[in-house]
């Protein structure tokens, strides 16, 4: 346990510093005048001018050197202060709370739904012969080959336009989350069902599985006692990798469905050069990755008796 926990704690601190520093450097390295970008986001396209940019530059003290700005950010960070948005002047923490709440909700529902799609599909592919498996491969490849917003659009066309069951976009009621979560879930399940399938085949043809069958256990009992844990291990480990991929999808999905999450917020903050929000969002996402991966490791640790024995 300690072997997992302490390296991860160190990793967490490194991620906080590394992500914050890297985003700072990258944002400063982007071409274009920051003051103009911020002014455009603050005052809108009709009212952005060099006067507005000068005002922003003066107000935010943008002329002070990058090094001074960086160290003042680091100092504030050590005090637990993420600063204020350069565009809206709201505390970054408040903005992130609003966005992160929505994103976590969307991601958890999507992940939950993806299990319900991936596990049966993977087991079907592993159990019911080549033709079924090939059909699932075609389905998975088709979904994965499509950009996630196309999957979202197809769902909108079917469920919102054709059947008029669910809203096209927005948030605020449970029905609003169904389509964005389903779109994400399908893209996640398109790959994870293959991991389930491979893990299942590996387990089904393993000597210990055969032995369990030969000694007279029913197929259900064999699966539950000897198969499920074995299959779960690579699937849970793969989950950690999928969380990275989910960010890619979540930006597009949040944009398409007007979902006020962190992915979409981060993209807009980058357009606006709102560095404190970018740093805060990237930092929070970095922390989340470490925390979630630690959780994945802990679950694997619980699932795999070999790891416990080694410890």
């Amino acid at each position: 346990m300690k072997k997992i926990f302490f390296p991860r704690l160190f990793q967490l601190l490194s991620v906080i510093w590394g992500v914050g520093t890297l985003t700072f450097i990258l944002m400063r390295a982007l071409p274009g005048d920051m003051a103009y970008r911020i002014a455009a986001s603050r005052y809108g396209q009709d009212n952005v001018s060099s006067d507005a940019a000068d005002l922003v530059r003066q107000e935010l003290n943008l002329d002070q050197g990058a090094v001074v700005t960086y160290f003042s950010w680091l100092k504030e960070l050590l005090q637990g202060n993420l600063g204020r948005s350069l565009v809206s002047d709201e505390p970054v923490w408040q903005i992130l709370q609003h966005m992160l709440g929505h994103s976590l909700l969307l991601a958890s529902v999507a992940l939950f739904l993806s299990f319900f799609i991936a596990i049966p599909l993977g087991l079907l592919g592993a159990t019911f012969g080549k033709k079924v498996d090939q059909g699932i491969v075609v389905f998975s490849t088709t979904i994965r080959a499509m950009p996630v917003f196309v999957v979202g659009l197809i769902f909108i066309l079917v469920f919102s336009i054709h059947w008029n069951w669910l809203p096209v976009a927005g948030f605020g009621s449970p029905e609003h989350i169904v389509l964005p979560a389903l779109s994400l879930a399908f893209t996640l399940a398109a790959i994870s069902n293959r991991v389930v399938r491979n893990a299942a085949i590996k387990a089904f043809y393993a000597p210990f599985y055969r032995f369990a069958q030969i000694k007279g256990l029913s197929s259900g009992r064999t699966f539950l006692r000897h198969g499920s844990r074995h299959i779960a291990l690579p699937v849970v480990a793969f989950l950690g990798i999928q969380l990275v991929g989910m960010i890619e999808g979540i930006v597009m999905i949040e944009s398409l469905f007007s979902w006020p999450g962190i992915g979409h917020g981060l993209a807009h903050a980058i357009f606006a050069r709102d560095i404190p929000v970018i740093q805060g969002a990237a930092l929070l996402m970095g922390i989340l990755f470490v925390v979630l991966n630690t959780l994945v490791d802990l679950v694997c640790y619980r699932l795999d008796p070999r790891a416990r024995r080694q410890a």
Partner: protein
Amino acid sequence: MQSFLRLFGRPTRFFLLLSLFITMTASAVAADNPTPTSQNTLSISGPFEFTSLDPSKNGYIYTRMQVLETLLGVDNQGHLIPELATKWQVSDDGLAWRFTLRKGVVFHDGQPLDANAVVKSLSIAMGKHGTLARAPISNIHAVSEDEVEIQLTRPYTLLGAVLANYANSILSPDSYGRKGNVLAMSGTGPYELFQYAPPHKLVVKQFAGYWGKKASIPFASYLTGHRAESRVLQARSGQADIVFGVDPASIPMLQRLPNVSVFDDALPRTIVLKLNSGYPSLNDVRARQALSLAINRRGIANAVLRSPGSQTEQLLPASFADWHLPNIKAPEQPVVKAQKLLASLGWHLNQDGVLERDGKPFELTLITYADRPELITVATAIQAQWARIGVKLKVNMSNSSAIPAGHQDGSLQVALMARNYGFVPDPLGVMLSDYGRTGGDWGAMNWNDESVDRDLATLQSVTDKKVRHQLAQHVAQVIYQDRPVIPVTFYKQHTAVNSRVKGFHFDPFERTFYLNDMVFVSR
């Protein structure tokens, strides 16, 4: 009831009565405090985000949703009309404007509107980025409880129009924090703020104490839809009652739907090419004229924008008679004329079909921005049309701020933009900032005409309508001839409106959505 209750034991009876009481209280509270539902809420979808309560930043969304109001309003022709001020007088020397405030106006927080509230709001607006900061104001003070006077350092005919701009909305004094930042929004409009979830969602609720025509629809919501296709699908599914900024390609599909009407409304916004008149290949007026001639405006209006008749070679439409030249006709054989003009400047086609002079090709880089989806398609159409005369155009998609930034650092060559000449309801406001002595971020670049500069300066103080007309016509004529910018088409706002909404009409100055004129019809 009592015999029914006797069927139960004492604790069960207690819980039954308690539940009944809670249900009835909750129903009564719900009846007094209705919540937004799809039946009682006018659902609006538009492309623009909002991140602040400050009117100097995102005031347009609050005046459009009719939460905030200004001292003066504007009718569809651009004439000033009373709003929170019922009348206004300008002193003979033009240096003092006195406004009489409407009686019986209350803010959403219950405070009455008085001169001190107006002075506070306007003084705060003056200290922020916006139209009032640029006005030559020396003092704003309360003359009496319902009279406000604004003193100027020089005559400024634009002041009335400037006061109609969203950034100069009047808020309750309690809305502001110590530094003039807006902490809570309390305006005077027919709707008050109900839910504020930046940057996507805003819900407003009808305000029973409104001084004018009261709203009949209890709630209205605004949802930012970033993707044009997502907004169109909201209109199509009926989720949104009104969808602003419908992309031209989706119009025929929406027009086929029985439950949706598409409105096309002309705006004082024009799609314009901004040229760097100091750039070597653009510094001769003949080159700029040739580029203008090579644009097939009718084709762009019909095929790209699907707004037949919106093509133009002028900055402002005919409804702005002062600034519109009535006798401009489309030239015949424009491409041939363009080629001749370029040949007269020494340009000749090389073997790749690109114009060349002194061994250098005629190459330009155009920047445009993604906020308005049609700009990129218009840019690529112009790219193809200029290629026919041998001009190679590279199109760069950027952020709107790239245009003023490119103007200031001199790197801009050509920019395509949708310029809003009604930002201040008198076009003089924008013309001054775009075509004054040093040009403007969104106007002329490295181009100057003394007569234009002089006339624009004079227009700020002249009140005589005839003289104003003559001066504005002269400015329009010089800009048309010299082409520091090339107008392409007038902008049309395409709006999809669901059939359950009656009373929709569009404000060409984009100040209000006229929500209080709309009603739901039963189907």
